[in-house]
């Protein structure tokens, strides 16, 4: 039990403590957000080099309330609200990592990360190689991604595929409570920069999380639902939709296997290809725009390495190549949905 060191925390934050304590108590329902918060608390407690920087993560408690209560517990030195200067505070995170700290930088959403892309690409991803192995950057950056909440084009991008293009970065997408709870500590142990993409639609999902849930690996994909007629490959926020699609397909007698990529760089080819070799048909559901998307890379690897196992062309269900519209019915039509994923699977099974 944590001794609450709330210093002037408002009633709202205090109550938040109780809710989050359930993570340490018995396996009461827990939200994705609370699982992340438990992971951050664990890291802050176990390693004093860890500190968190980001816009409104302290007093405000985090735009998505992930860091609620941490300022009261760990103080302003280690829970640092920053001005709206993405390039500066992400670069500062890199500098502090170079100097031996273990910073966790929260960029409010992937949409604002574009302002820090130069620091992430030209410094974080490049320094180790360019310095001939001298400069490790043990930095973790978390950012919210994805659409589906009617916040329109500038707040609804899904650009993890861009970042997965960059050698020197590791890119992960926790879609389940176990991964939300377990990926942060593993990422912090990695001497190289790890970017964690949390889909905005997942924060409110909840379920039971075993009390001793701890760190998980960030190297392999996972089979969330075994099947043998078609392989549905997806990640992050699209996993729930893909599982729903698999249910619809089961009703039609089509047994769909759902593969959750979990790591977008490096891709776990072995698990992907083993599944494709069993089912011979593939649908990839990716919220990125189709052209040059991560789904294009996964599809290319499948045709390169499992060509003789394909009984139908690889199907891809991606976001329509439009700026995400505000109107609900347009946004819903633009995004991958269980129905469109299921249709693609039926087309593949034929």
């Amino acid at each position, binding site marked *: 039990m944590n001794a609450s060191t709330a210093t002037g925390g408002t009633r709202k934050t205090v109550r938040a403590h109780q809710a989050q304590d359930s993570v340490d108590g018995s396996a009461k329902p827990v939200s994705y957000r609370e699982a992340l918060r438990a992971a951050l608390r664990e890291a802050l407690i176990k390693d004093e080099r860890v500190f968190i920087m980001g816009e409104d993560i302290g007093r405000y408690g985090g735009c998505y309330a992930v860091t609620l209560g941490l300022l009261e517990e760990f103080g302003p030195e280690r829970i640092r609200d920053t001005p709206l200067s993405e390039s500066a505070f992400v670069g500062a995170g890199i500098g502090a990592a170079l100097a031996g700290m273990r910073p966790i930088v929260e960029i409010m959403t992937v949409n604002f990360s574009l302002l820090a892309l130069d620091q992430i690409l030209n410094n974080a991803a490049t320094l180790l190689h360019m310095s001939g192995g001298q400069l490790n950057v043990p930095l973790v950056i978390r950012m919210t991604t994805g659409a589906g909440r009617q916040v329109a084009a500038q707040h609804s991008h899904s650009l993890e595929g861009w970042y997965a293009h960059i050698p020197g970065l590791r890119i992960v997408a926790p879609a389940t409570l176990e991964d939300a709870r377990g990926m942060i500590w593993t990422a912090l142990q990695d001497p190289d920069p790890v970017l964690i993409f949390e889909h905005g639609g997942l924060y409110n999902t909840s379920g039971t999380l075993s009390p001793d849930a701890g760190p998980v690996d960030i190297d392999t994909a996972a089979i969330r639902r075994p099947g043998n007629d078609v392989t549905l490959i997806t990640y992050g926020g699209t996993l729930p939709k893909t599982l729903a699609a698999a249910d619809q397909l089961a009703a039609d007698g089509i047994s769909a296997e759902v593969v959750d990529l979990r790591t977008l760089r490096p891709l776990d080819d072995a698990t992907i290809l083993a599944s494709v070799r069993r089912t*011979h048909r593939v649908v990839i559901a990716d919220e990125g725009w189709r052209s040059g998307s991560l789904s294009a890379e996964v599809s290319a690897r499948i045709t390169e390495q499992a060509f003789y196992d394909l*009984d139908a062309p690889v199907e891809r269900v991606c976001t329509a190549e439009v700026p995400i519209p505000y109107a609900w019915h347009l946004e819903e039509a633009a995004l991958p949905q269980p129905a469109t994923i299921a249709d693609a699977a039926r087309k593949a099974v034929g």
Partner: protein
Amino acid sequence: MAEFLMPSLGADMDQGTLLEWLVKPGDQVHKGDIVAVVDTAKAAVEVECFESGVMGSILVEPGRTVPVGTPLAVITPAGLAVIPAAPAPAEAVVAVVAAPAPVVGLPVPPSARRRVPATPPIRHLARQLGVDISKVHGTGEGGTVTHADVEAAAAATRRRPRVSPYARRLAAELGIDLTVIRGTGADGAIRAVDVRRALSEAKEGAAQAAPAATERPAAPQAAVTAPPPAEAEADKAAEADKAAERQAAMRRAIGNLMARSKREIPHYYLSTTIDLEPMTQWLRSRNRELPVPSRIVPAALLLKAAALAAREVPQLNGFWLDDHFVPAEHVHLGVAISLRDAGMVAPAIHDADTLTIADLMASLRDLVTRARTGRLRGGEMTDPTITVTNLGDRGVEAVFGVIYPPQVALAGFGKVTSAPYAVGGLLGVRSQVTATLAADHRASDGYTGARYLEAITRLLQKPEEL
């Protein structure tokens, strides 16, 4: 009767000179065929006809200049009863004008047909094979289109059957002729389900055939009819059924081969027990330093010994063809691999005698993986010169195999066991293996077979030199 008229080949053209007829009365013509060459004011242009049918009488001879629209010849449209022999007189023809008069003013592209140098018989052949001669690149002297050019163009255009890669592999595995299958996929693409259906239908066909198993190779030849729509809702049982069919087909293919081998080859069998203590010790110490991926399994050493011994005893490394032994220059070592539920195959590791242990191990692992995922290459299936079966993993102590015709020998290794053993008067526990040889008495006799097993025994005492 339809008439072939002098066409308008340009807005400013009112007459044309007929240079050459490319067809003669009685020839079959098709819509779009080039039938004549006409000279306009600007250039000589090949003229196509717009009717399919049989060429009737020629009305205008080469060299004459006639106004646009003048009937040049008569064509009996396809489908109309052809009045035998006597060609219809020209006048009677006038009444039936099927070919629409070309609409004056509609510009026909001047370069509609590139004038391709090709003799009439070549043009005719092109027409028969449905090849657009204007698109054929002439390789003959001066760019003329030759017979071969037309043949090649025809072959290229024959629509490549649309078959999914998995279906193509499955068909190869099950020995099913793709050309007889009707695909049910998009645009008639052939998919695995179609191959499996062809297999099951062939099985039924085979069942109705005469009970005495004929020499017919396992691949069924029966043509396949389109699947009834009810098939589409095949439930889970169908899936399991398909796997059973595949196994049955594989079983039958192996069965035929083994039966033929026992029938034709007078087998003789030899066996010996080999002390493997040196090999086991060497292997354990070597593997201890290696990372897991580069570790060596005992089987790799046994295979290398079998390959080297085959080079030492060439009489066992080759084929029995037309009643005489043909020695092989290389040692392509066949390795019997079990495909779990679907029988076994014995593809070759090429030049196994020349490979280092590490390379042999790597190619063994690659071969097994590809065998189990059905990606073996043709050459690997057809050219083993001697085969080894290693049932050691299954706990069998000795195995007397059946030779794979047309090879003349099959070596076998049982389980590596540790047993009491007397060496130099001392009793101790040492690991050992039972090595066997099945050989074709037509090609060799027991003495040669014994030399082979003796060679393997000797080679395995110095593992570091393998």
